[in-house]
């Protein structure tokens, strides 16, 4: 199953200049892994040294925050999306 990933403009150069791309996976966990496999330069931007999602990074699976999802092995279906956004932080 293909799933679309969208990035903030600041990270486009870590994904070959693209803000949108697709990866192929069966599950959400697979899609997250495939995203990093396709664009490994994203890893230090999204995750800290211990591979925890950075404090001000949000990764949405459709409309849900991946960090709060109980199960990342949920199977993908057509139209699913992954979106990386900056958490509202001050200002």
């Amino acid at each position, binding site marked *: 199953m293909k799933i679309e990933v969208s990035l903030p403009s600041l990270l486009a150069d870590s994904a070959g200049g693209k803000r949108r791309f697709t990866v192929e996976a069966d599950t959400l966990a697979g899609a997250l892994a495939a995203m990093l496999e396709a664009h490994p330069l994203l890893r230090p*931007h999204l995750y800290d040294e211990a591979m925890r999602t950075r404090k*001000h990074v949000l990764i949405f699976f459709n409309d849900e925050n991946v960090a709060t999802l109980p199960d990342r092995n949920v199977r993908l279906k057509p139209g699913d999306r992954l979106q990386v956004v900056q958490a509202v932080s001050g200002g």
Partner: protein
Amino acid sequence: MPTKSKSRRVVLLVGTVKGAFLYHSDARRKKWTMTGPHLPGWEIYSLCGDPRRNRILAGTSSFVYGTTLRESSDLGKTWKQVKAGPAYSAESGFELKHIWQIVPGHPSEPGTWYAGVEEAGLFVSRDDGKTWQELDGLTKHPSRKLWFPGNGGMCLHTILVDPANPLRLWVAASAIGVFRSDDGGKTWETKNRGLPTVPTGQPAELEVGRCVHKMVLDPHRPGTLYQQFHGGVFRSDDAGDSWRSIAAGLPGNFGFPMVVTARGDVFIVPLHSDEQRFMAQGALKVYRTCDRGRTWRALARGLPTDPHYVGVLRDAMATDPLDPAGVYLGTTSGEVFASADNGDSWTRLPGNLPRITTVKTWVR
């Protein structure tokens, strides 16, 4: 020695909290054109023009997306992220917050680069910047548990390579102090004798707890170092083994940047005080010593006469290797000033930029 060629191009690399800007001129350094913002949106804490591979290296940070190293081979038009840039291991327990300094290794080691980072640590590349490893002898120093951040963070902001000995390195970090290695960075000794402690709340007899703001190496006397300290200006004539004050004649003892020219002239920008980190009386002035700190001269010709309650950050000042030397500074309010005559007179370069974090020169 100073470079005399008239045909060379001068690039002034200016990093800010929201991207990088480049100023371009010829060797006369009278007319400047600006390009940028490059890497807009990224905090740029370090820049380096690499004459070996004709590229610019940039330490890019974001409080959201972390810290990475990027390079450009077309004067900032395009950038690519270094795949295996400086990064602490998960086991280290340290966080890479900023890359504060990128410097080439000794000329006899053309593939070697060093990067100083926050949390304080030192990284090395032996393959011309493709892959980086921590020189963890520094963070494994017995004093590590006593390291304490300054107001700007626990940053390793100065890396100096002895031109006479590729195995001898100095680093300085705030508010920790000076370290020297005589084995290429494997092991380190603190070099803080004669420097006062700053009030970190720790015991005064510690070998660390010295808030070095910036340190330079005299190009003609490899054992002579100068530093702008949190509360003073100091010189060492014995490779850092001991320090003594050279602050007599200065209007104050607080400031951040310090640079040295190819002839050995040293420049600083004193601020009012620790509590009031801007120019005293709002007067933007640079101070120069041409006699190793015995006397200081205030330089202000061409600098603004209207009140400038600004600062100059520790890495926001630079010199070039031309003759006479160029001296450059960027302020916390985003103005860039340049001198093409060793600081005797100054002009303001075009543009009003974000807060300036770093200024470097690259003569091509």
